[in-house]
């Protein structure tokens, strides 16, 4: 059960947002591959444009297949509504630009995905939105970073790739005391392992490309409006509390209350930025979500077995996963992730960068690519790829070392994963010996 539905999570994943349609009784969610929707008459068209009734106008804003995915994810997270987007990065961009304008300021965890760090430190800066990066579990650091123009505290539920778990209860307490909402990228967690809204988080963002889809065949993002923040009481969000001229001076908070953010995004960002998810992608991502909890159980079980096995290997210099006691946020992970803190494992091999490269190149089953969350096992060297644009200081703050190998542990039989990794470690050992 979530705050949006009285069904259990596994039932929500299969059913929420769709009941067999009346014309044909299609049991599966149909793909409404259409750009636009015929109006009954001019009066109905006018009503839709005036938001006098719900419905579809143009697939850049809404689409029936995409809406099923939105309502399903909103129900899984316990949010008041959701907006699906073309990618996880567009979901983040829309979130930041919906809540922030030129002259505003964001506080972000230092330990985040490289492209998000670039968005915050470079791209948004061009539009006058500044960012201070902090160690997100240091509440004093958050307090010290708050300015009069601060609008958001942002973090990832499990930092990428440092695997530091954000202490959501503490972060929310600090932010809310200052009248600030908390925005989280929960991609590494999925609602199957942790529901951030239940810990006070106000906006949840996912790259649904990853574990939510699980198949690695469709790119997409989602923004879930928690509906649990009083934007008026905060006093920092004229975007939501003051009249919005393009919609007859509508005040989103007054009009929509708990769905104010989602409705503003729909009305503004989807219309103006156009980062819409395709209906076909929504259909594919729905297929993945149907089995989310089953897959996450296997992802976590495999990650636990692999991390323990890696710890026993002689040329593995270190292993990191939030469920290991050596992870500095292990206690937080135990509290927030009772089913296990995801399936990302990072480790280093003796011999540094060359040995790491030899490990990755020797893998047969594990795929060397820039993605995470597939059902298949994926590996990457962050220092030379996803986080290569960061400065040495940013890399250190993000918990990234030169020898780090990032593994997104798949749901193959763990014996085969271990055999493949054993082969890679032998190659790494040879490379280390040769250098």
């Amino acid at each position, binding site marked *: 059960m979530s705050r949006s539905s009285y069904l259990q999570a596994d039932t929500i994943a299969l059913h929420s947002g769709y009941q067999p349609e009346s014309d044909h009784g299609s049991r599966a969610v149909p793909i409404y591959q259409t750009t636009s929707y015929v109006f009954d008459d001019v009066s109905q068209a006018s009503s839709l444009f*005036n*938001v006098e009734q*719900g419905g579809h106008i143009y697939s850049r804003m809404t689409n029936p297949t995409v809406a099923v995915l939105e*309502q399903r994810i909103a129900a899984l997270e316990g*949010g008041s*509504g959701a907006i699906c987007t073309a990618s996880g990065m567009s979901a983040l961009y829309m979130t930041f630009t919906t809540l922030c304008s030129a002259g505003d300021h964001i506080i972000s965890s230092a330990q985040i995905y490289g492209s998000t760090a670039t968005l915050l430190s470079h791209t948004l800066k061009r539009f006058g939105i500044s960012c201070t990066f902090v160690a997100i579990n240091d509440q004093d650091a958050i307090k010290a970073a708050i300015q009069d123009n601060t609008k958001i505290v942002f973090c990832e539920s499990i930092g990428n790739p440092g695997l530091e778990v954000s202490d959501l209860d503490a972060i929310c307490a600090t932010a809310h005391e200052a009248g600030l909402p908390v925005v989280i990228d929960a991609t590494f967690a999925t609602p199957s392992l942790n529901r951030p809204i239940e810990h006070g988080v106000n906006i949840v963002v996912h790259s649904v490309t990853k574990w939510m889809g699980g198949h690695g065949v469709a790119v997409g993002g989602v923004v879930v409006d928690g509906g649990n923040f009083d934007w008026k009481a905060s006093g920092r969000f004229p975007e939501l509390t003051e009249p919005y001229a393009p919609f007859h001076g509508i005040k989103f908070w007054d009009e929509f209350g708990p769905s104010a953010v989602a409705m503003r995004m729909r009305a503004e960002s989807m219309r103006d930025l156009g980062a819409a998810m395709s209906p076909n992608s929504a259909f594919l991502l729905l297929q993945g979500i149907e089995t989310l909890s089953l897959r996450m159980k296997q992802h976590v079980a495999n990650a636990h077995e692999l991390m323990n096995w890696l710890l026993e290997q002689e040329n593995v210099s270190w292993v990191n996963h939030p469920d290991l006691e050596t992870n500095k946020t292990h206690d937080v992970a135990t509290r927030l992730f009772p089913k296990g803190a995801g399936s990302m494992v990072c480790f280093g091999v003796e011999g540094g960068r060359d040995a790491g490269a030899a490990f990755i190149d020797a893998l047969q089953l594990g795929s060397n690519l820039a993605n995470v969350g597939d059902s298949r096992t994926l590996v990457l060297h962050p220092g030379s790829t996803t986080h290569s644009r960061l400065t040495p200081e940013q890399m250190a703050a993000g918990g990234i070392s030169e020898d780090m190998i990032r593994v997104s542990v798949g749901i193959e039989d763990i014996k085969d994963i271990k055999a493949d990794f054993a082969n890679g470690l032998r190659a790494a050992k040879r490379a280390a010996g040769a250098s």
Partner: protein
Amino acid sequence: MELQVNGKLTFAATGGKEFDSSLPTVLFIHGSGMDHRAWALQTRWFAFHGYSVLAPDFPGHSLSEGDAIESIEAMGVWLDDFLSAAGVEKAHVVGHSQGFLSALELAHNHPEKVLSLTGIGTAAAIPVNPALIETAEVVPAKAADMMLQWGFGPAAQYGISAVPGMQPIAIGRQIMANNPLAVDLKACANYEAGAAIAEKLDVPSCLILAGKDRMTPLKAGKALGVALKAQITVLPEFGHMLPVEAPKQSLQALRAFISSL
């Protein structure tokens, strides 16, 4: 818009248009624990089609200041004060659930101010289980859950929404859990005058009822309809939260009735 009623700041939604008291006015009254947002998809149509709209939050609810009103009778008095403060002499009055009980009181006290009366998902009396009231006093969110699980019909329970991407249960929960739900429920539970008032009223009336209403069962709604001599529309597949879960169908019945007068 914001106005002062009995010295307290009161919020009323106006359907996206400036309120104009020279136009025929439609007054929308929310149910227990809810607010003006329950009417988001009815008010805007009327506001854009020749009417002026007022959907107030009762005192102590969402955007209105003040203490929650403790009886339906007093809510009826407050509605009169509200109309006076807004400069409205007569209005079509629409109430959902508990909101309709207070509408009955307004019509009883000031029949000259009521052009028509519409009840949506309602009955002459709305008994409330004491356990629900006790829960609302201690953990409002839990009481809201109990009500919404009963209140929404089957499709909404499966996450079907009239507004793409939204989850009405979560929206309702957030609103109800932060409003004085227990006070409203007690007012409902204690109110017994509805049937007698309905018998005496002589005002054009309409009821829009839900076939799967478990809060104010269809049978009770129909009995009220007989007493009021009301035009009745039944939406068979929906639950008690008609304005939110069946906004299009509710609006269709409502505009057909009001437009016919």
